[in-house]
């Protein structure tokens, strides 16, 4: 009996305790927020309500706190000369065997792969291809023959000499063994010849303006003496390349460990050892970074943590333009979204700057309706987005799409203007953006229902089998492309061309003869000045026709511990985690 009676008492006390804990822990909140502002004490009575706003000011100027850790950094540099540098950089998932046929993601899998393997060219910090394993490469006058001269004395990780035979073998291997990224660029080669050990001559059927981007700088060279005769490339367990690092250890789902390659052709890398632990949960990654268990992460720092990390003297935050995109994808085949004027009205009703300020707390760049990131060298500053609810309404009125039954929703050709906006349920920021978009479109009489679904299900509706020729089943969708699509501006053609073979990323089924014409011309133009003019035309056309509405480009925000290593290089739009950051002549 007594035990029976005490139990509810304990439960009651527990609730009371919880309530008290809640009150007491909620209470200090407002006072802890303005902590960095000691002048607060002098403020008069209305401080209580003003506190959060006041707190925003000191932290809004990130320049000062980040400048502070300069001294420990200098000390670390001095120390680095004597003791080996070991860096721990967390990634969110295992990347499989690090070889060209088995790595998993484009980021960070490809970045890790390129620590082990080199291509003939390398993308520099501005994403422009520069000679690497090759000393130089020249195209003939007709643009069909490329003569490539290789470096002397480059060695594979196993000590064998690297030669032109490896290049020929690698390109032919990629042609013979299909891979989504490597096979396309080499498929049409007419011939590959190797007159001597350091020369490769490649003949093409037609000029390829993207040869340096898609072939020279992208395709990793694999050793002939190990890969020859391998018929099942996906399961071949090998890591031998010519790269700056060797893979010392890989424990699946736990970590990778790289060691510097002392024989690397460009000199011994600056970081002696790279340990890449795999930590799935972002909260855990950022906590570990704060406590010093890891020194950096490939994950972009969440906007809400930036202030806190910037004010932490042990951490440094690098921020730059990001090329990963978030866009509102129209189904350009389905009424009423197939009408340019309707898409223009939608674009006018969405305040992209407000999306950036609200959802991403300002840590992003508002979208250019012409797709290209404003930091891209091809971008025409004259192309700009506009926000005007009045103009949007006027456009819809002009089409005769009016709200005739007074329910707040316009009718387009007799049907109410309603749409389902699909969004990936594992992307909370995109869901939030979708909610704000729906609110904006409500103001112009379009009723949008946000539907969250699992990302594979969404892909199956928007981009079935990742093949745009297989159709689509949606009204509107939140979508995004990873940084490489934006990093190479010429890939814009694949987003807007109506032929699936060319417009392989045209998931909205957009069709426009003018756009196709310009895009076709871009694909065969080698002359750089002409290319630029054509790209500007394409950008302007895209901004007017709006096959999709570019919403924002997330900033790249990377945090690291400068005391351990502080020679990171920010590769435009792609971040700091790539081989340039670890090379001996970094900076």
């Amino acid at each position, binding site marked *: 009996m007594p035990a029976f009676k005490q139990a509810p008492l304990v439960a009651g006390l527990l609730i009371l305790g919880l309530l008290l804990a809640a009150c007491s822990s909620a209470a200090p909140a407002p006072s802890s927020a303005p902590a960095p502002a000691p002048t607060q004490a002098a403020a008069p009575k209305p401080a209580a309500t003003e506190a959060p706003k006041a707190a925003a000011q000191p932290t809004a100027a990130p320049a000062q706190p980040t400048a502070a850790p300069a001294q420990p950094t200098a000390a670390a540099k001095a120390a680095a000369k004597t003791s080996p540098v070991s860096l721990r950089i967390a990634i969110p998932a295992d990347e499989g065997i690090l070889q060209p046929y088995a790595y998993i993601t484009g980021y960070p899998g490809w970045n890790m792969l390129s620590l082990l393997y080199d291509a003939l060219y390398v993308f520099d910090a501005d994403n422009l291809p520069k000679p690497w394993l090759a000393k130089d490469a020249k195209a003939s006058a007709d643009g069909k023959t490329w003569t490539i001269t290789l470096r002397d004395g480059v060695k594979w990780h196993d000590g064998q000499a690297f030669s032109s035979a490896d290049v020929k073998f690698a390109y032919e291997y990629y042609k013979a063994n299909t891979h989504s990224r490597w096979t396309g660029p080499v498929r049409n080669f007419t011939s590959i010849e190797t007159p001597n050990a350091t020369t490769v001559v490649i003949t093409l059927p037609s000029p390829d303006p993207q040869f340096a981007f898609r072939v020279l700088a992208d395709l990793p060279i694999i050793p002939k003496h190990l890969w020859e005769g391998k018929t099942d490339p996906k399961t071949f367990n090998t890591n031998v390349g010519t790269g700056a690092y060797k893979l010392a250890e890989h424990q699946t789902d736990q970590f990778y460990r790289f060691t510097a390659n002392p024989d690397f052709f460009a000199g011994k890398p600056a970081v002696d050892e790279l340990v890449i632990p795999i930590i799935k949960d972002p909260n855990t990654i950022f906590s570990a970074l704060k406590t010093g268990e890891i020194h950096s992460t490939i994950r972009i720092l969440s906007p809400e943590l930036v202030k806190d990390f910037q004010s932490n003297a042990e951490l440094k935050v690098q921020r730059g333009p990001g090329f990963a995109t978030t866009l509102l994808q129209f189904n350009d085949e389905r009424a009423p979204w197939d009408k340019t004027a309707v898409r223009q009205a939608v674009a006018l009703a969405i305040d992209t700057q407000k999306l950036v300020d609200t959802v991403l707390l300002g840590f992003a760049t508002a979208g250019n309706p012409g797709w290209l990131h404003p930091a891209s060298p091809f971008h025409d500053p004259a192309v700009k987005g506009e926000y005007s609810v009045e103009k949007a309404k006027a456009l819809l009125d002009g089409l005769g799409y009016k709200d005739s039954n007074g329910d707040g929703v316009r009718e387009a050709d007799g049907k109410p203007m309603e749409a389902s906006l699909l969004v990936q*349920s594992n992307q909370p920021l995109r869901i939030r953006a979708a909610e704000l978009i729906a609110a904006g479109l409500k103001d112009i009489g379009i009723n949008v229902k946000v539907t969250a679904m699992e990302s594979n299900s969404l892909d199956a509706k928007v981009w079935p089998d990742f093949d745009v020729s297989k159709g689509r089943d949606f009204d509107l969708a939140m979508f995004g492309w990873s940084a490489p699509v934006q990093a190479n501006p010429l890939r814009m053609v694949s987003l807007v061309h109506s032929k699936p073979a060319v417009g392989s990323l045209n998931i909205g089924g957009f069709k426009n003869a003018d756009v196709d014409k310009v895009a076709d011309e871009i694909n065969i133009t080698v002359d750089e000045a002409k290319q630029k003019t054509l790209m500007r035309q394409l950008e302007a056309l895209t901004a007017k026709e709006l096959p999709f509405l570019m919403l924002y480009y997330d900033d790249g925000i990377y945090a690291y511990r400068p005391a351990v290593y502080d020679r990171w290089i920010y590769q435009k739009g792609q971040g700091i985690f790539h081989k340039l950051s670890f090379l001996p002549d970094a900076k």
Partner: protein
Amino acid sequence: MLWRAVRRSPLGLLGLTLLTLIVVMAVGASWIAPYNPTQTVGKPLEAPSAAHWLGTNDIGQDILSELIFGARISLLIGVLSAAIALVIGTGVGLMAGYFRGLVGALLMRLVDVVLVIPFLPLMVLLAAYLGQNIWNLIAVIGLLIWARPARVIRSQVLSLAERDYVLAARAVGARDGHILIRHVLPGVFSLALAQFVLATSGSILLEAALSFLGLGDPTQKSWGTILYYAQARNAFLSGAWRWWVIPPGIMITLSVLGFALLGFALEEALNPRLKGRGATAEWRASQGHGSPGLGGRLKRLFTHPTSQPGSAPDVG
């Protein structure tokens, strides 16, 4: 009936009071809440202030208003999925208790299967397969928690089916359907009510768990969804958990507790097996299979979300 059952139990009264408050909050949300929870009314991620008592969330919506409106969604999901569970559970319980042969055995094995289904992995699958919206969530929770009510009701039916008036009805040639509906169902009705209240508390907790994991409908403002966004926007690292995580946590706790206390009180009063708990409890203890006390049952409720408390020992 409800009042008579609760009147004698102070904890039941506490539960009823809590629930009344939460229901009033849900019904009157439009008047009570200071803002429209779907509108951006402030800067994102503000700390509590006079204008926003619990601060603002990641897109500048008022967290207090979200919390008040959240009661609607959480209660709706809780009550509807409990109703589904109860309809199935009562049906299965009646059949399994009344037809004791092959039908009963098969139904009880089905109940066993449902009881041991690993809940979250299944939920991940269903969310992917059916799509993530509130009605699917209700259906799925309902379809997964009916087994315990079914067991409890079956054990009651087992004893009812042997009562004289049932035997008499059978002797005069009444059809099984008639007996079940006219004579057995009324006998389990009060027990079913207690099970309904308990199932509601369980499904509120489940909804919160699923929404927190991002498996619910992230566009609906339930308490679990508030927690989901708090976690997604790193409230635990930035310190915002004090006003973004604890309040919905308390609301979930209070409503689950409210339903649980009321459910236990009803069960104590209405379940013949637990009636007159003083004497029976001691008798049971001496028999070595005492029903777990209220404390023990509460503990079970909170340590395992799918475990519905109060199932009487299975007889037969």
